[in-house]
Structure formats: structure tokens, C-alpha cells
């Protein structure tokens, strides 16, 4: 029994180490000066602490902070719009039951059935035609649209778990449909909203493909494109700078997870029990 447990723990520890190694070396690289990085073995500790210097260069040379702001705007605005639209749609589909509510749901949900890449060319053409190419509004619209199907799926599942009697009690108490949504459904949706916010904002934050295709200028391009372009067209990457940039770009998603982890776990349980 003890032997079995020990073996199990050893396997777990090895897996953790394997997983931590690249993260650790990335961190280590971010702390090193470019010279140290070239001259030292990858596992050696830096001879001087260069993180701040690396960050300075990331901001002054690559202007990562500007793109950071773009991505914050896209993640917050896109995620928020998707959350509002999807929760309203989920409420309507489940509780107001308009005609063709299920086909409507399927049509919206079909957005997650196909690989996102198939939207690339049509979107690029459409954005060019209607003047949304290389605009922040265009990016916000795109990100909110792409996040709605999954968000709707989660909200729809969650709203089915709210007992019908609670809705009826609220209606007897004096709620119309909108007040019912606002006072009864929204306050109970913290957990699913946390899941959606975390998943979708992280997705928007990490998106490289659509940002690259649909934007061109520094004022609109999201951060991942800026991070990717740090490697330079001919491969002359300064690894410590790139790693410092990678750490910088990871801050929001890590913060978001720490902030929402309590609700996130509730939400995950909820989602699993729905499926």
C-alpha cells in the first residue's frame, strides 16, 4: 500500500517537474541579460538581475504596453458584450420560449461547431467592404460575436437549473420579464458568468490569428501579434526580451484566474453537472 502510494507520488512529482521545467526556464531567461543568456547554460542562474532592464526594453523598443491596452479593451468589451447578449438570449430561449426557440439556439450554437478559421476570409472581405478592417470597433464586434455561442451554451444550461417555481413566485411578486431577468436570474448567474468571463476573455487575450488578419496598425493590433513580432522577420530574437514580454502578457489572465477562482470552481461543477 505504502509502496503503491510512493510510486504514485513519484510519478506525480516527475510530471509536475516536466511541466514546470519550460516555465522555470522561461522565467529564468526573463531575468537574464541577453549576454548571460548566450553565455550561460539554460539552467544556470543569472549573474545579474536584468528583469527590469528587459521590461524597459520591451516597452521602449517593442511598445508592448500599447498593444496591451488594445487587448484589454478587446477582452473586456468583447467579453462583456458576449456575456450580456448571451445571458439575455439564454434567458429568452429558456424562459420566454419564443417561436422557433430551439432552432434559434442551434443556429447561434453552430458558431462553435465549425473551426474558427473558416470565418477568416469572409470576415476579412466583409470588414474591408464595410470599413471595419483595422478598427477597434471591428475587433470588439468580432470578439463578442465569436464568444456568444459558447456563452449562450453555458447560460442556457444554467438557466434550466433555476426552478420554474422561482420564476412564478417572482412574477406573482410583481416582476415582468425584464425585472425577472435582472432581479432573479442575473444575481444567481455569478458562477457561470465567472466561467464565461475567464474562458472567453482568456481566449480573446490569447488570440493571434484574427488579430493578425483583421488589423494592421499599432493602434489596433492586439498584444499577441506584438509578442509574436518580437521574434523578428529573420529570426533574430532576443530571448530574454521575448520571455519578459511573455511574462508581461500573461499577467492579466493569471490575475483573472486568481480573482475568479472561487466562482470558477463552482461554475465548473455546475457545467459538468449540466452536461
Amino acid at each position, binding site marked *: 500500500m505504502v509502496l503503491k502510494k510512493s510510486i504514485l507520488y513519484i510519478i506525480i512529482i516527475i510530471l509536475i517537474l516536466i511541466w514546470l521545467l519550460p516555465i522555470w526556464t522561461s522565467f529564468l531567461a526573463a531575468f537574464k541579460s541577453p549576454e548571460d543568456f548566450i553565455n550561460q547554460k539554460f539552467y544556470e542562474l543569472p549573474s545579474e538581475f536584468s528583469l527590469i532592464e528587459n521590461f524597459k526594453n520591451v516597452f521602449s523598443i517593442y511598445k508592448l504596453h500599447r498593444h496591451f491596452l488594445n487587448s484589454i479593451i478587446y477582452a473586456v468589451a468583447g467579453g462583456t458584450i458576449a456575456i450580456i447578449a448571451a445571458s439575455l438570449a439564454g434567458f429568452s430561449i429558456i424562459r420566454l420560449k419564443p417561436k422557433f426557440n430551439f432552432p434559434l439556439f442551434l443556429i447561434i450554437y453552430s458558431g462553435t461547431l465549425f473551426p474558427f478559421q473558416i470565418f477568416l476570409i469572409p470576415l476579412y472581405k466583409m470588414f474591408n467592404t464595410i470599413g471595419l478592417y483595422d478598427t477597434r470597433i471591428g475587433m470588439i464586434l468580432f470578439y463578442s460575436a465569436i464568444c456568444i455561442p459558447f456563452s449562450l451554451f453555458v447560460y442556457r444550461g444554467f438557466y434550466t437549473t433555476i*426552478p420554474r*417555481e*422561482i420564476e*412564478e*413566485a*417572482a*412574477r*406573482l*411578486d*410583481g*416582476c*415582468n420579464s425584464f*425585472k425577472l431577468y435582472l*432581479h*432573479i436570474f442575473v*444575481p*444567481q448567474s455569478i458562477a457561470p458568468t465567472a466561467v464565461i468571463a475567464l474562458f472567453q476573455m482568456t481566449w480573446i487575450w490569447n488570440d493571434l490569428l484574427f488579430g493578425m488578419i483583421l488589423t494592421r496598425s499599432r493602434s489596433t493590433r492586439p498584444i499577441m501579434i506584438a509578442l509574436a513580432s518580437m521574434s523578428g522577420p529573420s529570426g533574430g530574437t532576443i530571448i530574454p526580451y521575448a520571455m519578459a514580454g511573455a511574462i508581461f502578457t500573461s499577467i492579466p489572465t493569471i490575475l483573472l484566474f486568481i480573482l475568479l477562482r472561487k466562482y470558477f470552481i463552482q461554475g465548473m461543477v455546475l457545467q459538468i453537472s449540466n452536461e
Partner: protein
Amino acid sequence: MARVDLKNLTKKFEDVIAVNNMNEVIEDKQFVVLVGPSGCGKTTTLRMIAGLEEVTGGEIYIGDRLVNDVPPKDRDIAMVFQNYALYPHMDVYNNMAFGLKLRKTPKADIVKRVNNAARILKIEELLKRKPKQLSGGQRQRVALGRAIVRDPKVFLMDEPLSNLDAKLRVQMRTEIAKLHQRLDATIIYVTHDQTEAMTMASKIVIMKDGLVQQTGAPQEVYDHPNNIFVAGFIGSPAMNFVDVTVTDRITLKNKQFELETPSKIKEIIKNNDLVGKEVVVGIRPEDLEDSQFVPEAKDTNIITANVEVTEPMGAEIYVYVDIDGVLMTARVIPKSKLKSGDVAKLFVDIETIHLFDKKTEKAYI
């Protein structure tokens, strides 16, 4: 408070008729219990009165107002649900105050009303708690409180006690009855439990398959059931039914017994011309007694049968006997020594028996 008037009320769900042409007047301050088995239409009726279910046909009046097309919130009613339906994200105070807030009641008034209701229901110390921190009984009190603060014309209660354990149910039964007296309110209460109906109601409406079978005061319904369904549904243990033939001598004869009839029954037989016909006789378990303990027992008022099982209840014993393949229940005094396998001689209190038509199942009067 107000009276509720249901006129030709009908509800259809596609091809199924849930409530069929119901006519009922619920007087002001009356405690009316709609009772019946699952699917009899009692909850549908309540939901139509609440406005949660559309009416297919007929009219509902609350007070003098026709409310068919009035939304639930404007009907001046409050409803207590079986699963309490408390808002999980609000504390007890806000659960009770929510309806008043939506109606823009002044804050001071809300505080007063909620505190008053909390005092009546003895939940003052729970006002800051969330529903998940409450026991079933406490939740039910909050649900009642939410209805009370609204001071509605009519209270609607949909099986409010069925999620509680047996002991708590009995306790809350008394509390709701007390509440009715205290509030002087019109209450329409739905249950499938005939004991609740008997103990709480000032009027019982017994339903089956969407049709009202009988309406009346609990004792009246118990003593004079209209048909076999009502007779069997009201009363616990249920009434016993045996097929008998009315003989020329106006006795009730079965393979196992022949009962002499008293003048009251003779008159019923005469009025309905039952001589020579087969009828169903209904005998309540408490109208059967171990003949050893009844001095007036004689051959013409006893039933002899094999005892299948006995259930000592403490204050009485339920004796199950086999009459011509039908299991009958007798409630006999605890002194009785009857046990399974015995041949029991059961005295029948013939004055209280009921006669029913075998085909229509209606009671002969």
C-alpha cells in the same frame, strides 16, 4: 379579503382535459382545500386562479373582478409553493420584502410588515440568513411570510407541507390553521393528503380526472360521500367496499354474511327499488368491531371472516380480514385478542353503512 368565483372553468392541454367545467364559489375568509389524487386537476385549478396557467374556457372572479386576462402580479393574490420557491440569492428579509419593493411600498412600511410577519411566524432571528442556511420547516415559514407581508386578497397554497417530514407536517398544519384564524384570510389550499384536507378545511372540494366529485364541509363529506371514489378517498384507513345482494327480506347478503337492515337503510332500499339487485355496501373501518366487546352483537349484524394480518397501533388495532377475496379493514379496540389466522366475528354498526350503485358508483340516498 375577497371571495373567489369559478364559473364553468375549463383547462385543456391539447387533447387532455385537466379541469372540466368547474363551478365553485369560495366565500370570503373561507379555508377551501382542493383534494384529489395526482393528475386530478387541483393544482391546475390553483394555477389558473393565480394566473400562471391560461384559462381554456370559463371565468374566474376575484372579488367582483373578472381576472381571466389580468397578469398574476395584478390579481392581488399570494402563493406558497410546494418547494418553497425562495430566492436563493436573497436573505430572508429580502425574500419577504421583494414583492413590496417592486410595488414601491415605502421603506418604513416594508420594515414594519416584514417584522410583523416574522414575529407571527417566529422567524425574527432568521431574517439575515440565506435560504440554504435554513431547515425545511424554516423555509416553509419564510415562504408563508412572503405571502403574508403582501396582505393579499387570497392566499393560494400548493401542497405547502408535502416536502416536510411527518412530525413537522402535523405541526405546520396546526400553524397554518391558526394563521387562517389570525389573518381572517381567504385561503385556497391544494393537497393530495386527505388528512390535511379534513383537519384544516372549512370546505373540501374533492376532484378526480378534472371533475369535481363533491364539495362540502369535511364532516359532511365524510358522513355522506356522493360516490365510491369520495367514500374511498376521504378517511384513513379507507372505507371497505363489498358486493352484496338485497334479498326479499331486505337484508344485505353475501357469501359470508347476511346483515339485517335498520329502518333508515330499508327506506333507501325502498326508495331506490333495490330488492333483488346487487349493490356495493361501504363500511368504514371504525364501524367494524370485535363482536366480543359489543353486547348487542348477534348473528344478523356480524361478519365472520379469516384474519389475514393485524396491525397494533397502540390506541387501536387494524385487523385485516378476507371477505370473499376482498381485504377489509376493521379498527378494533386494543383489548381485542384477534390475531392472524383467527376466525373473526366482526360487529357491523349497520346504522352507518353506505349503499352505492354498482354501475354508476353513486351513493343511494
